[in-house]
Structures are given as structure tokens and as C-alpha cells.
């Protein structure tokens, strides 16, 4: 095993070996989820705080269940019902949670770098559940897990990420994870949302959707992030759907075994045709199942200390 990190802040700072360690560990936790008794005592007595300053349903519930299945106690914290409203800073809120002996802080925040900041001021383990447009590491890990499980490998695969890349933390984390594991990543979408500067991350950028999906083994669709966008990025949702949406005609030209992925929430009829979202090649719900296993693995791994394991 090769995991000695105290926090999971981003994918950029992980090695391919560390990513593989998470995926291998997650495989065993997925099996736990299929048992009659889905709970193991690995984090018994630990306290996990879901500090979600930006709203989220699926990631928060996924982390909540992951902590519960590891026998930890979990507290949910949402910005709407908190002292943030009364002007408390993030640091003070986090220190208050630590004063209650929280062992893990899982943070979702609209500001990039918020988890890194917390990791410097807290003793607790910090896990990034999405920070601004920066990274969403557990989403990338569950995407990699799903691809590896379905395709048997990641190295050498053509992965196309289609949609709003500029504002997407999922895209950034996916690019880091998949390129580190040897996939060839292509980004596609409107030129305003997929700038050429992304090529510096080691991937290809194109604005021709038919070319981008033709040779893809995996097509990962991203939602248009209305909440982060200025109105001028593209003319209209209708035009986006027409030019970049995965419709039946485009789907027919993809490889017959190409996987369709989406981090959710999906906007049916916008970035993806409703029937395609439900077809046999869509692994959107598997991603949700795998997300739970991956988050259990992450909690399990960061909980570990620094000294090697003594067996027997």
C-alpha cells in the first residue's frame, strides 16, 4: 500500500500509484455494500463533519452513508442553517467543529482552495468534496473506478469530456486522474467554455463534437453550470443542445461499446437525450454506487497513520 497522506485535497498532487491504491481499496468496499450486513467497524468512534457551504445532495448523502457504513458518527452542516449567516468566518466555524473533536472535515465550498486552507489550520483530516471550479477529487476517483471496472483498464483509452469545462471542478479532477493513469483525454464544448489553455494539462482540445466522440471509449458529459456562468458564454441552452448535446444521431456514430458517463445532476434534453441517459451503455447510476465505495475507501485510507502495518 502506498497511502500516507493525511488529507485528500486534490488529484493534482496524487501519484498514479496513490490513485490506484484508492481504486483497489474501493473494490473491497464495494463488495461490503453487497453483503447482508453493509457496515464495518473501521472508523468506530470517529466523528465526521459534512461541512457543506455550497449546496449538494448526492455528494453529501454519499459521504454520509460512507461514514455510517464505516461506523463513524456524522454531523451534517449546511450553510443556510448556520452561523455563516451571522458572519462567522470559515476558519472560526472549522475551529469550532474541531473543538467538538471532529476527526474528519468533509468540505464543499464555492471558493477554490478552501479545503487546502482548512488543512493548514486544523488537525483533523480534511477531504475536499468540491471547491469552486478547482477540483472534486472523489468524483474523479469514482469516474476512474467506473471506467476501470467496465473497461478493465484505463491506460490507452480515449476519454472525451464534453460540455462546460471552464467552470467544472469535475473536469479538472478527471483530467488529472485520467491522464496520470495513462488515458488520452479530449475536451470538447463551445470555445468560450473549453479554452485552448487546457492543453497545458496534457489533454487535447477540440470544438468539433462529432470528431471528439467518434473514437471515444468513454464519453463523460458535464452539465452546464448555470450558477457559475455569465450570460455571455453561449447564446442559448437550445443552441447548446443542438450543437453539443448527445442526441440520437450523434450517439449512433459513437463506438458500439463507448460508455456514457455523467456526474449528475443530469439535465435531460439539454446535454444528454433522455433515452441515451437510460440506455445500456449509460453507467450514470453505477457511478453513484461506485461513489459510495470510493468515499469509504478515501475515509479508510486517510484515517491511517504513518508507520507500516505489522501483520499477523
Amino acid at each position, binding site marked *: *500500500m502506498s*497511502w*500516507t497522506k493525511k488529507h485528500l485535497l486534490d488529484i493534482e498532487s496524487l501519484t498514479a500509484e496513490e490513485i490506484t491504491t484508492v481504486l*483497489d*481499496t474501493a*473494490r*473491497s*468496499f464495494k*463488495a*461490503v455494500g453487497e*453483503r*447482508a*450486513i453493509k*457496515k*464495518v*467497524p*473501521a*472508523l468506530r468512534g*470517529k466523528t465526521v463533519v459534512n461541512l457543506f457551504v455550497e449546496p449538494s445532495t448526492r455528494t453529501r448523502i454519499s459521504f454520509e452513508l460512507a461514514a455510517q457504513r*464505516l461506523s463513524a458518527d456524522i454531523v451534517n452542516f449546511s450553510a443556510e442553517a448556520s452561523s455563516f449567516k451571522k458572519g462567522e468566518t470559515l476558519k472560526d466555524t472549522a475551529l469550532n467543529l474541531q473543538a467538538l473533536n471532529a476527526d474528519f472535515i468533509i468540505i464543499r465550498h464555492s471558493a477554490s482552495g478552501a479545503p487546502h486552507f482548512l488543512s493548514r489550520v486544523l488537525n483533523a483530516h480534511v477531504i475536499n468534496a468540491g471547491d469552486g471550479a478547482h477540483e472534486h477529487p472523489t468524483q474523479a476517483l469514482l469516474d476512474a473506478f467506473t471506467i476501470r471496472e467496465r473497461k478493465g483498464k484505463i491506460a490507452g483509452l480515449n476519454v472525451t469530456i464534453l460540455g462546460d469545462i471552464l467552470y467544472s471542478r469535475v473536469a479538472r479532477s478527471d483530467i488529472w486522474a485520467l491522464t496520470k493513469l495513462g488515458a488520452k483525454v479530449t475536451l470538447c464544448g463551445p470555445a468560450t467554455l473549453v479554452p485552448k489553455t487546457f492543453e497545458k494539462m496534457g489533454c487535447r482540445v477540440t470544438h468539433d463534437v462529432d470528431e471528439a466522440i467518434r473514437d471515444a471509449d468513454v464519453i463523460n458529459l458535464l452539465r452546464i453550470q448555470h450558477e457559475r456562468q455569465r450570460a455571455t458564454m453561449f447564446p442559448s441552452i437550445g443552441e447548446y443542445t443542438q450543437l453539443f448535446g448527445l442526441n440520437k444521431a450523434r450517439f449512433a456514430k459513437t463506438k458500439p461499446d463507448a460508455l456514457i458517463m455523467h456526474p449528475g445532476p443530469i439535465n435531460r434534453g439539454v446535454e444528454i437525450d433522455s433515452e441515451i441517459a437510460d440506455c445500456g451503455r449509460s453507467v450514470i447510476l453505477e457511478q453513484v454506487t461506485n461513489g459510495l465505495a470510493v468515499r469509504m*475507501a478515501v475515509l*479508510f*485510507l486517510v*484515517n*491511517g*497513520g*504513518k*508507520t*507500516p*502495518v*505489522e*501483520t*499477523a
Partner: protein
Amino acid sequence: MPDATVILDATAIQRALTRIAHEIAERNERSADVALVGIPVGGDHLAARLAKILSGIWNHPVPVGILDTSMHRDDLDQRIAPTVHPTEIPFDVNGKTIVLVDDVLFSGRTTRAAMDALNDFGRPKKIQLAVLVDRGHRELPIKADFIGKNVPTALDEKISLLLTESGAAADQVILKKK
């Protein structure tokens, strides 16, 4: 390898497993109730070998499972997270006599974790413990029912089991200074 001593060679390992299999057969008259569960890494291969010998003695197949104990360890926040191996229990443990199989019995903490992990799959009628090597230094009140060899050791020594199933050239149990 500095100061490495071979404690058991291939013949001795085979002989010890054959004896343990006969002891298991002698202790458990209702052979249909017995299932073996190996603890990775090492115990899983030993369990498969024992099951083969036992099925020869009893003239019927003996169920074998693999049980990973890492999620039930009591030192998870003190050491690097252990490698989690797959668990496969392809039979109902309720009412069975489960023989846990491990390569080396040391502190007893792995055995404790294994008994906890097994409970997640049901309630066995009995749990017995078979080990190839008992090296002493128990930290818990745990004792093996079937032992291949007792080896008095110092705490700074390490015992390793090499098996052809895991890619070794020959079966061996080795003792060396850390």
C-alpha cells in the same frame, strides 16, 4: 538475506498440513458441517490446500472461503492503512463449524479481527483456529486449536511464508532478523 533461517521446507509444510487435516477430521465428526476460511495473505492458500487434503479424507468436497480482516483491525488509525483483500464466503456460515486458517499466529489481533469479520456473515456454531506457525507473544487471550509448528521467537524477528501459489520458487517458512 541476513540471518535468514528456514524453519519449514516444502516437505515439512506438506507434512504439517496433512497432520493438521487429520486433526481437524478427528476433532469434527460431522464433516458436512465443516468449512475452512483462510485469512489473506498466506492463510487463503493454506486453507485451499487443507480443503484438498480434507476432502480426500472425508470423500466429499469441503467449502473454502477467504476472509479479509483489515476493516476490523483495532490499529487502523495508528498505521498506514492496510491493503484490503477481497473477501469471498461462498457458503452460509450459520450453524457451521468454521476453521479459520492463518499462516502465523503472533499477537492474536488478526484472529480477533477475523472472528468479528466472520460475525458479519452469520453465526457459526463453532470457530476453530488452524495456524502453520505459532510464534508466541500473544496480546489477547487467543489460542490455536491446530498448530503446524511452535517457533519461539524474539520480537525483532520476522516470519515469512513463501508459497508457490504466490509466485515463490519453493514452499518455505523463513525466520529473519528485522
